[in-house]
């Protein structure tokens, strides 16, 4: 089984190197092929991880159920984004276009590689290294359009995210310090050892490490009040990168927080790590819901929706019911698919109308019959409408929360999610379903800009419907395994 684990780590990096040399049409095909291969490999890891408990390849690679839960949506977004990018990129002829394409495709593949590898490495130290790689690659991808906005967004992103990761590194070191009481001064931070010894760690040091990790990795995850880079980077990056940032990168950072959460649960018992996440989650959900009500930029709107969903994830982790934890893990997957699809739709709209301003976009469905309609569906999915996956995951989180002693939190969650629903769906639906002014129809014309975009969105929505109507049996087992791994206390 090790072969699959090694293959999933090797394929994207090999394609990264290849796309640096190949011409554009080949890079495009290679990236899609790599996305398909990675997704298929990720799916084959699902039954293997549930039947064996964990898979390992050498000392550095280890995949348990929790890892696979995060690899699957990342691989899915890799696949759909590769298809979307093929239709989205309109490059100028000549060397400028070639150079852009080369940077873009090598960067895209490397970025996806780092996000696939991060959940598969064994240990907090290597995890930090992988996440830092995602930062530097994605910062360059945010800046790739070389506009004033992109430069500003990239600078803010690289500075704030790097500072966050500096704090996360401090968290890793403090956790190492806690471990020296049990393992002596020389050991590596691999998960099995950490989890086995955690109950003997000094609690104060673990508390510090947990808080530093939530702040540090929370910066990359987009938790309020350390989310400030997120709307800028998401709105100024090329849309395929926005989709990956929102759907996969934030989840990868959440995974890092969960690893610290897992150790803290065993070292401290459930109260402390849950309360830390609850505080950040409530702040994120509240602020995002309010910003969603006043946002008029399509991509920034989706960015704040990401902050909202990260808040939901953090709150969900604070509930004691295992049902809520299963919901949180399902939410990670469903949010990846939904946010990717929504950004693809936004990309299609931006290509057509040449603006992100919601007040100037009218008649989206009339001009873009496929991607406009699917954008509305994706936004409804993001707002928690059935029959899509987010409905199921939010339902699980809320019903888990209502069985919690602190069921008031679940009530607050429902109120804020409803508020966010208004903000998110009102304006986007309005711009999409209003009839198109004749002037716009005349200048822009009806019809899709590219069928690649439509295919990517169909895939995303299909995934969401599958998750919403019936979660496949193996995936359901995987989610329960992962939830059990997270819930073990001392």
């Amino acid at each position, binding site marked *: 089984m090790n072969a699959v684990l090694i293959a999933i780590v090797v394929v994207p990096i090999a394609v990264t190197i290849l796309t640096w040399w190949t011409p554009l049409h080949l890079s495009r095909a290679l990236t899609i092929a790599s996305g398909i291969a990675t997704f298929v490999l990720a799916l084959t890891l699902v039954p293997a991880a549930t039947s064996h408990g964990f898979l390992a390849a050498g000392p550095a690679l280890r995949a348990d159920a929790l890892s696979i839960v995060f690899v699957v949506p990342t691989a899915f977004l890799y696949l759909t984004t590769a298809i979307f990018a093929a239709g989205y990129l309109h490059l100028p002829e000549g060397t400028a276009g070639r150079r852009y394409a080369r940077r873009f495709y090598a960067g895209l593949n490397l970025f996806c590689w780092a996000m696939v590898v991060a959940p598969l490495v064994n240990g907090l130290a290597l995890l930090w290294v992988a996440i830092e790689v995602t930062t530097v690659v994605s910062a360059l991808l945010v800046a790739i359009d070389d506009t004033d906005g992109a430069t500003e967004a990239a600078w803010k992103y690289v500075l704030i995210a790097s500072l966050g990761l*500096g704090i996360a590194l401090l968290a890793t070191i403090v956790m190492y310090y806690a471990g020296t009481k049990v393992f002596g001064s020389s050991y590596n931070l691999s998960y099995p050892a950490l989890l086995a010894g955690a109950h003997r760690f000094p609690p104060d040091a673990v508390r510090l490490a947990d808080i530093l990790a939530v702040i540090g990795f929370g910066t990359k995850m987009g938790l309020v009040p350390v989310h400030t880079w997120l709307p800028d980077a998401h709105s100024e990056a090329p849309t395929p990168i926005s989709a990956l940032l929102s759907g996969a990168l934030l989840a990868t950072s959440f995974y890092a927080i969960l690893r610290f959460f897992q150790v803290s649960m065993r070292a401290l018992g459930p109260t402390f790590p849950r309360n830390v996440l609850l505080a950040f989650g409530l702040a994120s959900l509240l602020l995002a819901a309010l910003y969603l009500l006043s946002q008029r930029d399509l991509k920034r709107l989706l960015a704040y929706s990401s902050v909202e969903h990260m808040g939901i994830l953090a709150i969900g982790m604070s509930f004691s019911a295992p049902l809520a934890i299963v919901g949180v893990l399902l939410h990670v997957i469903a949010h990846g698919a939904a946010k990717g699809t929504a950004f693809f739709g936004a990309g299609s709209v931006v290509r057509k109308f040449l603006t992100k301003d919601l007040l100037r976009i009218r008649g989206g469905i009339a001009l873009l019959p496929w991607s406009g309609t699917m954008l509305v569906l994706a936004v409804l999915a993001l707002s928690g409408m059935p029959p899509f996956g987010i409905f199921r995951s939010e339902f699980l989180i809320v019903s888990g929360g209502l069985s919690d002693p602190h069921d008031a939190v679940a009530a607050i969650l429902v109120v804020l999610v409803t508020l966010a629903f208004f903000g998110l769906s009102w304006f986007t639906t309005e711009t999409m379903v209003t009839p198109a002014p004749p002037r716009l129809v005349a200048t822009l014309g009806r019809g899709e800009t590219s069928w690649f975009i439509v295919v990517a969105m169909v895939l995303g929505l299909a995934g969401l419907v599958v998750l919403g109507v019936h979660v496949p049996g193996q995936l359901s087992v995987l989610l329960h395994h992962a939830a059990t791994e997270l819930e073990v206390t001392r």
Partner: protein
Amino acid sequence: MAHPAPSTFTGAADVIAVLVLLSEFAMLRAPLLRSQVRLYAFQSLVVTVLAIVVAATRHIDELYVLAAVSFVLKVVVVPRIVLRLLSRAEVSLAGSSAYGVATMTLIAIAVSIFGFFSIGALHLHSTALPSTALAISVAVVLVSFVLIILRSDVVSQAVGFFSLENGVSVASLVVASGLPLIVDVAFLFDLLVAVVVFGVLMRVHQGRTNTLSTDPLDQLKG
């Protein structure tokens, strides 16, 4: 209860941590960007010395390699890159900060005291590892935050991040020198990549706005 005399290693680690903190303060008040970069090079040199001390006292031979790499990167290459960038810039004075030098220093003293004592309050006593150096390195991290927040030019902010990494390096050397070498090398490699990215973005910024100040970076809000 009488405290035992600190070992040579603990003493050396504490002295070096203090030197790193002092150079962080010097960076905070340095008016010239050029001198800020030189102070960073000095600070990195001190951290390299710490790596050698740890390697010698704990007999971890791999750390010599790490020290060599760290010397080349952080004392020679990175300051070179930034200084070259500065030589192209019109103005090499630090961007005007919101507060005067005295206020900045007082704020920095306050946050470093906070950092030092908050680690002390955790009672992380350990016979093998120097907790004082850990507390000081947390203070370094906090002061570098002050530097980044109060200085409004891209060079100070980047140098602030690099020196934050120096602070974390001190912590990792005194506490986590037992981590496998591969991890340490990965850390350093990551830093190098981050530096390159910072360099690229600084140059892009300068190319677009013709300034090193962060004042033009206020277009995206809401």
